[in-house]
């Protein structure tokens, strides 16, 4: 895998990056010492083979696909590097990997050297381009070099025949180890650059690679063995499974995109039915993700909790808007129909297999800690943690709802931030989970601080333009604006007694 330009500008030259770079130099020297391949003394056929390997590596790297959104690309180049290791030793393997990666990196990003991108300065752009190239060189050197040297010393240099099963097995292990060293380095860089948890970055990018990496690990050895016997034909033959593997990879990425698009469309439908929910859904989703970070939710739920927050009220599509927007008290029939929405929502979400768990969370997002919620009357820890998170965030946003006019709920005036916070605290234990509420209040505090810091930075400009602007001031009072939902807020703010 190669770092993309998308990630490069975010990397700052920290201790960690320097360490990776400085590690690359001894590895390079070691690989030269272990097997000092003399490129000028190679036989004609060997030179042709080496050149073919290099060309193949460059071609495959040019077809690389981006891996999720982190800014890392993947090309099926590893088997070629392993074959080179088998035939020409660790130094040649490093050269093939690095040259292929650099050529593709430069050719895919060369416009960055000459064209200024919006929001960047040209010199800064060039510097981060160079930094990206440097990091790719060193991280590939470290990954390929260490595994290559270890292989060469332990297996290849020893007496037994090179075409043995031991060699085949060792090369498969080398291929897997190479991949995961590379992956660990990149995950660490990305998690530092985006300031997110290591296991989450890992899970999002590498969860699905375990099988395919293992399955494809013998490719490198097969390629090397074939090339040793019939150089040109061997290379051509191996290209087919390489490209097939590559296509499988690309389709896998696209499948995730399809699911994302499905969630998106459902969100858009929700908005069509209840126009005031749009901002609400996005704020709820943002906060839910922040809280999940703070609560140590497992990484596989992290990716889903944002979707769950977007879809939590999808069941309201099936509820009459007149009831949702009714001013005044709701009668029993109205409540009965509102109370169907978690069940309907979970039924809709469960149509997508990817959202199986989310369907469960949606079903329980109106349960209360004391067991008086609906639809199943679960209490305490029986309620999934994710549902508890969503119910707190949803309630808060519903209470402060209405920073802009069209987001305001018709049936009640929004509360101030402080009033909503104390309402959350008051309902701890009966309606909300204490732990979740305290994490949420922390998240809010942090955001307010950031907002204030931002305001402070912007203030000089504002005062220059005009004197106090009441509208802006009042909006900052409720930095995290909102809007929507209806029954949660009714219940938590005084509607509760009426409900029983």
């Amino acid at each position, binding site marked *: 895998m190669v770092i993309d330009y998308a990630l490069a500008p975010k990397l700052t030259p920290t201790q960690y990056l320097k360490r990776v770079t400085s590690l690359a130099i001894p590895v390079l020297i070691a690989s030269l010492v272990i097997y000092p391949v003399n490129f000028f003394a190679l036989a004609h056929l060997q030179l042709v083979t080496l050149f073919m390997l290099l060309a193949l590596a460059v071609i495959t790297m040019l077809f690389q696909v981006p891996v999720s959104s982190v800014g890392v690309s993947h090309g099926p180049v590893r088997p070629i590097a392993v074959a080179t290791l088998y035939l020409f030793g660790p130094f040649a393997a490093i050269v093939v990997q690095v040259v292929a990666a650099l050529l593709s990196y430069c050719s895919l990003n060369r416009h960055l050297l000459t064209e200024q991108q919006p929001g960047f300065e040209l010199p800064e752009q060039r510097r981060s381009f160079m930094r990206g190239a440097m990091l790719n060189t060193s991280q590939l050197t470290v990954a390929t070099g260490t595994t290559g040297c270890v292989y060469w010393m332990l297996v290849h240099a020893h007496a037994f025949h090179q075409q043995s*099963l031991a060699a085949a097995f060792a090369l498969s292990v080398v291929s897997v180890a190479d991949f995961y060293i590379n992956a660990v380095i990149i995950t660490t860089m990305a998690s530092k650059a985006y300031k997110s948890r290591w296991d989450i970055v890992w899970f999002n990018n590498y969860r699905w690679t375990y099988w395919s990496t293992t399955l494809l690990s*013998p490719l490198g050895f097969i390629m090397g063995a074939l090339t040793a016997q019939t150089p040109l034909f061997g290379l051509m033959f191996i290209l087919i*499974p390489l490209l097939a*593997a590559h296509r*499988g990879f690309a*389709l896998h990425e696209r499948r995730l995109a399809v699911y994302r698009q499905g969630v998106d469309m459902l969100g858009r439908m929700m908005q069509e*039915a209840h126009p005031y929910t749009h901002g609400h859904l996005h704020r709820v989703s943002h906060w839910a993700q922040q809280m999940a970070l703070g609560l140590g939710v497992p990484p596989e739920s992290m990716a889903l909790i944002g979707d769950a927050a977007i879809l939590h009220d999808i069941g309201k599509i*099936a509820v009459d*808007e*007149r009831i949702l927007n009714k001013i005044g008290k709701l009668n029993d029939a109205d409540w009965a129909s509102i109370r169907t929405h978690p069940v309907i929502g979970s039924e809709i979400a469960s149509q997508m297999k990817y959202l199986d768990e989310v369907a469960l969370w949606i079903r329980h997002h109106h349960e209360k800690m004391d067991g008086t919620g609906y639809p199943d009357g679960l209490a305490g820890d029986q309620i999934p943690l994710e549902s508890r998170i969503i119910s707190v965030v949803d309630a808060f946003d519903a209470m402060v709802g209405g920073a802009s006019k069209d987001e305001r709920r018709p049936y009640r005036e929004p509360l101030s931030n402080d009033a909503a916070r104390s309402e959350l605290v008051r309902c701890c234990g009966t309606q909300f989970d204490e732990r979740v509420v305290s994490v949420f209040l922390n998240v809010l505090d942090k955001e307010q601080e950031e907002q204030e810091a931002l305001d402070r930075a912007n203030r000089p400009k504002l005062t220059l333009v005009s004197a106090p602007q009441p509208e802006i001031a009042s909006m900052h009072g409720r930095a995290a604006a909102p809007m929507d939902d209806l029954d949660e807020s009714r219940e938590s703010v005084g509607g509760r007694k009426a409900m029983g």
Partner: protein
Amino acid sequence: MTPFNSIVDAIGLTVVTASFAAAFVITPMQMRRATLQSYIAMARAVEAREPHLLGHSELTSMYVVEMAKRSHRYWPWQLRRLECAALLHTIGKVGVPYVLLNSPNQATTTSDRFAIREYVRIGAAILDAVPQLQSSADAVLYHREYLDGSGFPHGRYAGSIPFDAKLLCVASEFVDLTSPRMQRAGLRAMTAQDALLYFRQQAGRKYDATVVRLLEQAHRHVAPRQARNARHES
């Protein structure tokens, strides 16, 4: 041929076969399933607004695909576009007020009727915004047009209605007429035979005669499958 060689060959063949299977069979299948699942979820979301129509879109899509196959006008990969259109043809109803969709004597006034009819435009607009669904948008927009120009939204005549839309029109109305859950005041579900008779009478006037013939053929094929599914569910 040494044992070593044959083992390497075996591993090699396995890897090649596996990567081919993964790239050209398994992953595309998963892709297709993922896409369909999300469209079905959307269809369910709209149908939840009109509980008496539950399952309408899925059944319509079965009919449309069968009819399209029999028409010999589509390549297999073009059927996908019709399937999406059929699954999502009511999606615009999310934008129609709930009262209008559910009142027993619906659409008594002209303005109500026009408000309901907006759903084809809303649905087409939603599909049009998604690159993968753009090709289905036309079928959705024109699926309530009749040959004699009495349909909506534009009142187009025979020649200017896309064939996709003609298929979708007949299939969805057939499913509507025969749906046992159709409990609106004054309407009782027709038997399939009555409904087919009605379409035959209107063939050439409201509906395209070719399409009606396709419907009859498709019905012969889908009805047993449908009955089996229903028995399975209950």
